[in-house]
């Protein structure tokens, strides 16, 4: 047995022993009810944000400004990655074959299923668990299946390039910023929800701006991660004798 595994097992048993003795000596009181802040959120989410889902209400209403800046961090990380990875798409066009017909057909069905579930997650985010981030990540999973099966070159030939994807992402983020900024026109605070946006349109509950945010955020996350996956799928042979060094 190597020394590393022995040390790990010793650490684990020490953790167990320490926690047992700490329980016997201290016998701490465990929390048995919600914290006051969480109680406030759970009680007031329907009245104040028109959303029955407390998590989405916190993400896009109570702490909406936080989330918008986090979206900006996400955007900068992806743009930074693509900038490091500066790469002509001619290298990608060399990979055009993909996997067999059987795999391609089954992937089409599976990707359709994943995308429809992702749409349900994203568009019902203000009514049931889910929202823009998980929905967009699920779409990104579908594209991560599609890229190796159909080969990145084929997708670029069909007109899906990472430049276009980043452009979609930028447009979605701009729209998101506009949704956040619009209440300022009427002298309200930035990221205002219920005082400016209606709770429902034609009997459809949209929870004010929450469903708009979810829609745009899912679009932004999906296109951003698809662009990243497209760049990461470049095979190593494409660089041999390339312009890297």
């Amino acid at each position, binding site marked *: 047995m190597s020394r590393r595994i022995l040390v790990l097992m010793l650490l684990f048993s020490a953790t167990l022993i320490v926690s047992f003795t700490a*329980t016997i000596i201290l016998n701490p009181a465990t929390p048995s009810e919600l914290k006051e802040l969480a109680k406030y*959120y759970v009680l007031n989410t329907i009245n104040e944000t028109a959303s029955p889902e407390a998590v989405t209400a916190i993400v896009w209403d109570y702490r909406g400004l936080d989330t918008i800046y986090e979206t900006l961090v996400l955007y900068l990380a992806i743009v930074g990655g693509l900038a490091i990875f500066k790469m002509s798409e001619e290298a990608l066009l060399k990979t055009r074959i993909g996997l067999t017909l059987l795999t391609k057909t089954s992937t089409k069905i599976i990707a359709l299923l994943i995308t429809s579930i992702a749409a349900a997650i994203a568009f019902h985010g203000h009514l049931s668990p889910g929202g823009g981030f998980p929905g967009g990540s699920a779409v990104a999973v579908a594209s991560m299946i599609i890229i190796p099966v159909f080969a990145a070159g084929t997708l670029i030939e069909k007109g899906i390039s990472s430049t276009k994807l980043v452009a979609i992402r930028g447009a979605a983020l701009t729209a998101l910023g506009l949704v956040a900024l619009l209440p300022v026109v009427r002298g309200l605070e930035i990221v205002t929800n219920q005082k400016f946006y209606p709770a429902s349109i034609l009997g459809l509950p949209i929870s004010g701006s929450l469903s708009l945010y979810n829609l745009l955020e899912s679009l932004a996350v999906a296109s951003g991660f698809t662009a990243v996956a497209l760049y990461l799928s470049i095979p190593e042979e494409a660089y041999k004798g390339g312009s890297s060094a």
Partner: protein
Amino acid sequence: MLEALTYILIIAILGLNALVSIYGIIYGRSLVKKLISLTILSDTVLVAVIFAGFYYAYPIVPPVYQDLAGTGREFLVKHASDPLPQALVLTGIVIGLAVNALIAFGIIQAYRLAKTTDARKVVETLSGVEVTE
């Protein structure tokens, strides 16, 4: 007694997890292994944030109302899971994913320039300075 034991045990195992992943970040040779340790550390922190909203109740339900009229308010306050850590973790996961992708881009670039992911050899190749143990 059993409740207190599980409570302390979860805290201790999270601490151990953080310790091992920090060890991996510092002593791992390969940059890829360092990245894997970093993701384990960030996941440990996220579990700790979720654990901050933990309390004993049965049954536990999601903090979601069944209708728009807001029925079952009293039940939800006694049985809903804490929504605030969930909201923080929801965004934290996506930000972590983007930052990890950025680091992965950097590692691939370093691999292309130095033809290795060993952290010391990457430094030696790129800067020309000898790295001593």
